[in-house]
């Protein structure tokens, strides 16, 4: 149990530290570095506590449930491989922490840096120890994201931003691919548990989805480990602070890819596809990286490409997939991490102390900084694979595998050659690094005078170089056992112990090593001059750079193409959108009806009535006329709309719907007045627009006409089909049967509205109130177009009569109508439940009564006499209706349960008293408020405009006086 908790502690420690660090103040440099170092050290301590278990070949497990139903649990699993890797990560992390303490400048926020670094470490460690492939992907993506932040730590520079973004995009893409791959793996294996999957290799390789699975998996691994053709993000990531590079590109980030390859080689590997894809990519990367590295002038660039090249080597080994190959891969992972970290740190020291990383400027640094130079030379020698250094050993194992292992393909045959070429080039660039930077004449034009760095900045490098030497000389004593444990945990417990030795006798691998050393030296000797003078890249190759291809692709794919596509696929204009909407509706209706629409066999027809037909002739003509005139003769269109409306209303009445006719008429009046009010603010359109006569406009109109006709035909035929169908039993029947007994009213429509479906009405008044508020709010900020501010032409004519004159007689009658309309409103209101009418009709009537006063006189006249507070009305109305509805609760009934009963009043007799009436009062008040609010809000604009005119004139007059 203690182990279990320790394990969890190990997983959480970096994240927890990261969070603590985030809260530290900017200046807490010492505290933050101590904290970070302690955290790393603590992790290491835990790991060492696990060592005996691991050595015994046991697998440690811990488990926290997260989303078990998706098979995603925080399962932790540590075997030898993971242990080794985690130790590597944490130890190099510790060194990087120490190093960064001295490397990072005064202006950099160290706590933030360490927080990111630790979060990254945690994520990396998460990949290593997660026992669930999905959780592994989670951590995988987290590393992508954290590395993005780390690379972009110095985001003031464009290079850092671009580098960070590239790294994020490439690795996150890989991560997503990996996710799918893992999902497939889990699907194939029947579990997402790593252990289960590792055991299900057979099943997975035989699965029908093996191909895509492999492709996606490799996509993930290759992008992370910067394999060709996804290698280019890595050099870009060099814009990061050097400690970050030292960490990310030696032990962590890029190694995650190869970790995955090695881990899953037994599961997915062993097939030809695997071999070709992985070893092929590895070989190409190995050589390509080395070639480019040779030509880089930037110190970190050289190291970056060398990293790529070495990763290619490890990948190639993973592709081979044999037991020894895996062991070699693991060994090289460690070795590379050690020497590359030291080299990056050394490069950082050089950069830090001289102010440049350009190898063309750096020269003869051995003299000012001999100590550092020695360390760097040893590390570089390890990179080159010089005997007695750790790099030599693993490289030789690679050579041995390349020579010994066979599966009979051409790639297999070519493997040794790739190995030699790669190694020679690696010798060459290592040599170049040593020779140019430390030897030769001492550079004089460096930005800073070079000298040795602070001692603690060098300590990590010293330690690492020491490890290089120790491992190189006593491999079996140092790393041997644990590498074997790790390899066994990957390749199977039955793997025999492989003894790593410095001396195997004179054999092919040794010869190859020597050849590589020789050829490498030769290459450097021959090309040293041309390289330092030449462009940053080998002949021709520097022109086709992955980065540039990537940039081009990214730009095309994520910016130009989508924009282009959007321009074609979408539109900002309203008309096409409405057209699409109509067309879609037509299309889906046609899709549903095509070939299936049938009319009832015996049509249920009523004999046509000539009067009705005649009036619809008018109605139809009005509709078409309105459509025709709406552009140039808005007023005429409005009148014609009125015509169509009144015929519609007649239709309602004709087919037994007095309530509808009534409401439609009232609304019609209000709408017409509203539209008229709006008409005042529209631009005058007297002359025809010339463009309208052109062909495109005509084509547009014709097209819309076709759409309109199809739409009209469609809806007409559906309506016809429905109307002529036999009657079905429906809800209406029940309402008719029960309205009186259950609802207590004879007007079924009204009973439905205020009782059966009162909730609809409840919502409807809310809509009215909302719209009223919106209109009011919108008009508060209304600003008329400049030409509309002027009073209309009619008022500015030379002999235009005044309004009072015009309305002298009519206004008298209109004022008379006020009380009459109030009575009529009352009439409609009280009739509602039994006969046509109701709260809505009454409300609109009352609103119109007010409106008539406004029309008959003017705003100031009316408002100096009556104060309508429409918003108050609305609020009270809404509250009354909701209170009525809630009243039912008091009696234990649901909301809006109506109670109707007859109350006996002396002399008067039975008087119906229904709560529905109260509800209707609410409706009434809301409607009055909303309609008045809308009308008056628009009407006030004229007043405001005229007031504004007056103010302007007054201002002008004042100016004149002055």
């Amino acid at each position, binding site marked *: 149990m203690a182990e279990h908790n320790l394990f969890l502690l190990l997983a959480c420690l970096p994240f927890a530290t990261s969070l603590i660090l985030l809260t530290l103040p900017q200046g807490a440099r010492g505290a933050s570095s101590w904290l970070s170092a302690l955290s790393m050290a603590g992790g290491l301590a835990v790991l060492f506590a696990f060592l005996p278990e691991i050595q015994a070949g046991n697998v440690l497990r811990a488990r926290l449930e997260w989303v078990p139903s998706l098979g995603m649990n925080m399962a932790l699993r540590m075997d030898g491989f993971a242990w080794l890797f985690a130790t590597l990560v944490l130890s190099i992390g510790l060194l990087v922490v120490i190093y960064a303490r001295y490397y990072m400048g005064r202006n950099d926020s160290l706590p933030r840096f360490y927080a990111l670094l630790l979060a990254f470490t945690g994520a990396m460690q998460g990949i290593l120890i997660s026992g669930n492939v999905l959780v592994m992907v989670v951590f995988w993506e987290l590393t992508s994201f954290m590395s993005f932040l780390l690379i972009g730590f110095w985001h003031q520079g464009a290079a850092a931003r671009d580098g960070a973004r590239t790294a994020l995009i490439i690795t996150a893409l890989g991560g997503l691919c990996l996710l799918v791959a893992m999902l497939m793996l889990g699907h194939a294996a029947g579990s997402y548990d790593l252990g289960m999957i590792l055991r299900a290799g057979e099943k997975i390789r035989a699965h029908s989805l093996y191909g895509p699975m492999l492709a996606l998996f490799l996509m993930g691994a290759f992008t992370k480990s910067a394999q060709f053709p996804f290698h280019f993000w890595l050099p870009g990531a060099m814009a990061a602070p050097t400690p970050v590079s030292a960490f990310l590109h030696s032990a962590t980030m890029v190694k995650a890819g190869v970790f995955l390859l090695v881990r899953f080689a037994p599961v997915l590997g062993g097939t030809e596809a695997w071999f070709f894809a992985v070893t092929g990519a590895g070989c190409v990367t190995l050589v390509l990286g080395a070639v480019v590295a040779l030509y880089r002038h930037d110190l970190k660039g050289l190291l970056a490409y060398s990293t790529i090249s070495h990763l290619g080597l490890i990948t190639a080994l993973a592709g081979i997939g044999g037991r020894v190959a895996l062991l070699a891969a693991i060994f090289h992972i460690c070795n590379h991490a050690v020497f590359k970290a030291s080299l990056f740190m050394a490069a950082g020291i050089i950069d830090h102390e001289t102010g440049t990383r350009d190898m063309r400027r750096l020269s003869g640094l051995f003299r000012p900084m001999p100590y550092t130079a020695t360390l760097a030379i040893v590390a570089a020698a390890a990179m080159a694979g010089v005997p007695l250094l750790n790099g030599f050993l693993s490289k030789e194992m690679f050579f041995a595998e390349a020579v010994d292992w066979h599966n009979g393909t051409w790639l297999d045959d070519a493997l040794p050659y790739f190995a030699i070429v790669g190694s020679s080039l690696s010798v060459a660039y290592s040599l170049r690094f040593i020779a140019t930077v430390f030897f030769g004449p001492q550079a004089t034009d460096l930005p800073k005078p070079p000298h040795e760095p602070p001692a603690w900045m060098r300590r990590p490098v010293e330690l690492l170089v020491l490890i290089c030497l120790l491992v190189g000389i006593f491999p079996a004593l140092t790393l041997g056992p644990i590498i074997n444990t790790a390899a066994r945990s990957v390749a199977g417990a039955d793997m025999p112990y492989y003894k790593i030795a410095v001396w195997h006798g004179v054999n092919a691998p040794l010869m190859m090593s020597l050849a590589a050393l020789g050829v490498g030296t030769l290459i450097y000797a021959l090309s040293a001059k041309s390289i330092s003078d030449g462009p940053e890249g080998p002949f021709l190759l520097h022109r086709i750079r992955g980065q540039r291809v990537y940039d081009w692709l990214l730009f095309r794919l994520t910016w130009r193409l989508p924009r282009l596509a959007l321009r074609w696929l979408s539109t900002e204009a309203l008309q096409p959108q409405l057209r699409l909407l109509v067309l879609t509706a037509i299309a889906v209706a046609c899709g549903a009806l095509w070939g299936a629409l049938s009319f009832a066999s015996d049509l249920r027809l009523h004999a046509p*009535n*000539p*009067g*009705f037909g*005649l*009036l619809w*002739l*008018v109605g139809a*003509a*009005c509709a078409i*006329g309105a459509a025709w005139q709406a552009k140039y003769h808005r*007023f*005429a269109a409005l*009148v*014609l709309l009125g*015509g169509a409306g*009144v015929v519609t*209303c*007649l239709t309602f*009445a004709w087919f037994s719907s*007095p309530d509808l*006719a*009534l409401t439609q*008429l*009232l609304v*019609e*009046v209000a709408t*017409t*007045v509203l539209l*008229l*009010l709006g008409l*005042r603010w529209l631009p005058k359109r007297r002359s025809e627009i010339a463009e309208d006569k052109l062909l495109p406009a005509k084509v547009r109109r014709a097209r819309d006409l076709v759409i309109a006709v199809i739409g009209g035909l469609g809806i007409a035929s559906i309506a016809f089909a429905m109307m002529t169908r036999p009657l079905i039993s429906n809800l209406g029947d029940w309402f008719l049967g029960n309205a009186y007994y259950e609802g207590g009213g004879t007007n079924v429509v009204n009973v439905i509205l205020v009782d059966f479906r009162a909730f609809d009405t409840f919502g409807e008044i809310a809509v009215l109130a909302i719209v009223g508020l919106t209109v009011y709010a919108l008009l508060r900020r209304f600003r008329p177009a400049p030409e509309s501010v002027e*009073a*209309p*032409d*009619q*008022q500015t004519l030379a002999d235009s009569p005044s*309004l009072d004159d*015009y309305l002298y007689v*009519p206004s008298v009658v209109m004022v008379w*109508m006020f009380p*009459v309309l109030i009575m*009529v409103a009352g009439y409609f209101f009280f*009739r509602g439940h039994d*006969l*046509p009418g109701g709260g809505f*009709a009454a409300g609109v*009537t009352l609103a*119109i009564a007010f409106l*008539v006063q*406004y*029309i*008959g006189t*003017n*705003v100031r006249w009316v408002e100096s006499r009556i104060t309508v507070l429409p918003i108050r009305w609305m609020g009270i109305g809404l509250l009354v209706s909701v209170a009525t509805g809630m009243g039912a609760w008091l009696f234990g009934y649901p909301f809006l349960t109506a109670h109707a009963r007859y109350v006996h009043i002396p002399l008067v007799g039975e008087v119906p008293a229904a709560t529905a009436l109260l509800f209707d009062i609410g409706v009434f008040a809301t409607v009055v408020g909303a309609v008045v609010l809308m009308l008056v809000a*628009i*009407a006030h604009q*004229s*007043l405001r405009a*005229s007031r504004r005119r007056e103010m302007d004139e007054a201002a002008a007059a004042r100016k004149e006086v002055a």
Partner: protein
Amino acid sequence: MSATILTIALGYAQVALALAGCLAGTRLLRGPRAQDRVLALDALYVSIMLLFLVTGMQLGTAFFFEAATVIAIMGFVTSVALAKFLFRGEVIE
């Protein structure tokens, strides 16, 4: 007998009123001036109101009365607003 008389009379009235509405409708469409259209709309309203009454009589129900009342009382509001717009260029000032 009375039913026949009334049926004929009311049927005639219905057609006559519809026709009247139709004629108003032609004026509504033809114009030529805005005031003609407004006047025509008013006439159409009146015809339809009368049609409501006649239909109500035909069916023997008083349910169309409200609609007719609304036309009688409110119909003028539309026309007045339209006329005022013609005269002043705005309805409420």
